[in-house]
């Protein structure tokens, strides 16, 4: 197999890991303000992702680094194209990262409320923007023959891409709810989370159906049987998860929602292959794994590194979830 193909697959894996893991921790951040108004409850809710969110975020950073190393032209074009959108995402992520550390350091209610708001914004904004970005990539952007974006900020926003953002927000909110169901003990909170999860999940289903229709209209992704199959599988996984969740939330509903996210991500990449960014001006100007990649030498070294390191990372990340597998309750000893 070509190194380029291996790296296309590795980047798919990294984005799948990112959307699956950070998906639920964005979801938790989005839901926290709605689940409870009490500060203690919110602290408890956020503690479910406290030990892991930072590690989850590294999946995104690694995906970015891998794009840079393997497909530098994609990294260059994509990041300069989404210039202002990425700025907003960075502001959101900065607020979020600092908020987790600072919110508990002062007892004053306005202090905590401010950082809670930062976590909410820091979770919903990146989720939305990733949805917009993924949708734009599939629909195509005005990229010239020199690989440089020809449009402006507002060309990134269309009805379709905004719907894409909304789908991401709703799916992640639901995914967060199904994660929280596994991590808490308080009956009242669990009841509230179930209500919110059903609401987000139900809306996500409707938005996703609409999204599929627009995807058929705006892209050629669904013309490929394997991508089409994966997008439909997503619908099946998601509905199954939602049914389980509505009846009796538990591991199965979480696993199914994770599968839904994984299959839609893989479906997206399968539909794009071998392109990574589609040019709406001329199909030949799209950025592909061949015209945007690093040299074979660089890719070969990176491949060896990835095959040695990724399994190690997976082992210790899984260990983290194992250590913190116990459900949290309000009277657990404070962490620090």
């Amino acid at each position, binding site marked *: 197999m070509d190194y380029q193909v291996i790296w296309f697959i590795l980047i798919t894996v990294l984005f799948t890991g990112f959307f699956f893991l950070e998906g639920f921790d964005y979801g938790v951040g989005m839901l926290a303000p709605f689940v409870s108004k009490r500060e203690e409850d919110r602290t408890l809710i956020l503690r479910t992702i*406290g*030990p892991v969110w*930072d*590690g989850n*975020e*590294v999946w995104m*950073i*690694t995906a*970015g*680094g*891998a*794009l*840079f*190393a*393997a497909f*530098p*032209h994609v*990294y*260059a*074009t*994509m*990041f*300069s194209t989404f*210039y*202002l959108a*990425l*700025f907003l995402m*960075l*502001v959101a*992520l*900065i*607020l979020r*990262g*600092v908020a*987790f*550390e*600072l919110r508990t*350091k*002062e007892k004053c209610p306005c202090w905590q409320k401010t950082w809670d708001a930062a976590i909410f914004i820091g979770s919903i904004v990146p989720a939305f923007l990733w949805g917009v970005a993924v949708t734009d990539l599939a629909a195509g952007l005005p990229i010239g023959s020199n*690989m*440089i*974006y020809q449009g402006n*900020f507002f060309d990134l926003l269309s009805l379709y891409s905004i719907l894409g953002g909304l789908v991401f927000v709703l799916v992640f909110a639901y995914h967060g709810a199904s994660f929280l169901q596994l991590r808490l003990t308080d009956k009242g909170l669990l009841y509230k989370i179930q209500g919110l999860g059903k609401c987000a999940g139900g809306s996500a289903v409707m938005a996703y159906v609409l999204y599929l229709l627009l995807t058929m209209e705006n892209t050629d992704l669904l013309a490929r049987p394997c991508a089409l199959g994966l997008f439909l599988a997503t619908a099946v996984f998601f509905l199954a998860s939602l049914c389980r969740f509505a009846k009796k939330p538990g591991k199965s509903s979480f696993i199914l929602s994770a599968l839904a996210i994984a299959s839609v991500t893989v479906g997206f990449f399968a539909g794009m292959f071998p392109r990574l960014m589609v040019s709406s001006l001329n199909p030949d100007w799209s950025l592909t794994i061949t015209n945007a990649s*690093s*040299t074979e*030498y*660089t890719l070969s*070294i*990176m491949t060896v*590194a990835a095959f040695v*390191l*990724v399994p190690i*990372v997976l082992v*210790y*990340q899984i260990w*983290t979830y194992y250590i*913190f597998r116990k459900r949290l309750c309000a009277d657990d*000893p404070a*962490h*620090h």
Partner: protein
Amino acid sequence: MDALLLSRWQFAITTIYHFLFVPLTLGLTIWVALLETCYVRTQRPHWKEPCRQLVKFFGTLFLINFSLGVVTGIVQEFHFGMNWSEYSRFMGDIFGAPLALEALTAFFLESTFLGIWMFGWDKLSPKVHCLCAWLIAIGSNLSAFWILVANSFMQHPVGYVVQNGRAEMNDFLALITNPYVVGEYSHALFSGISTAGLLVLAVAAWKYVHDKASQDVFRHVLKAGAIYLAVGVLGVMGSGHMHTQYLAEANPMKLASMEALWENENPAPFAVAAVVNQYESKNDCEIKIPALFSFMLYNKPEGELKGINTINAEMAAKYGNGDYRPDVFGMFWSFRIMVGCGGAMLLIAFAVGALTHLNRLEQYPWLLKYLPLTLPLPFLANTAGWFVTEGGRQPWLVVGLQKTSEGLSQNITGLEVFLTMAGFTLLYLVLIVAALYVAVRFIKKTSIPVEGRDA
């Protein structure tokens, strides 16, 4: 608005902000891991609890700083694609690899084990918990290694060929064994230790003076901190000296600018102070010590050093007409600020170390009282040092291969860059204030008494 100039400002501002936190993270994580090792290994039962609280005390300061370091670091990674996409295209084949390796080997390690360390106090055995602290320290310092591998290439390209309109890697081993990395990395590592060392001393001095209940504990911290600081500063000086000697062959323009040495001299003097006149390519006035600079470079009071004017003419002959001089005034004075701050820190380390060792702290009450005021020293030194490194690279983005002006993204407007620059500057400022506020309040309210007698 000029997108190039603004992008350069933006990069400088965000890098300087980021580099306020990074060295502290590098040094403090090792400090915390060392403390935790003491906690795990101590045989004196009444020290067990204070030791544990000390780990948590410095651990909390570390975490506050770390969170700012991480979030400002993501901006740096995105920056290359956002503002400098032509650079990314030209250099991606080489520059991307260390960045991706940084994420795979370092970021995952530090962030995953940080989560475990923070929340795992009652879930892991003390030894395993301590191991997590060391893994965080290894992760942080590995991350510095990879980023400096990338930076060293920009200063001194090795292991590449230019073809297909870009620089392509052909020797990965040369990239990571670039002699430039040795100088940059060891210097950064020790400056991290110095930065953390001075923070530890400043905090311990304040607690010693203002919190009688914790005095016993912080007397020990003062002693250990003084040693830590001394190790750091001596390391910084040694690695800096070595690296400067190496600059004579690797990057003579940078070296000559650090000295504001315009014409060739043999032996070269060391200028203590100078009024630099970049327009006329000379110093209007200077105080100098004869032959000292040659001595520093070649370990003997003779040896030629090329001047800026000569090197500029050589570069013009090689790369085409143009001005290849960095901002000499900035270089000259940044270098002196860096070295001056380092010297002051070494004095502090020796003074505090000697007085704690001799049990004479009480005789010089002003020393500890004013010690916290010296806290800006390492941050000033780090900023100045980073200016010497990066300012000395101008007008090149990658020395000899790509000019700064050629690396800019072509589709971004000055207004866009201005908005994001203003946004980051303000946001970072607010966050620093918030973090400082939290850190100071935390230091004030946390007390660490020792129960029982010292054996």
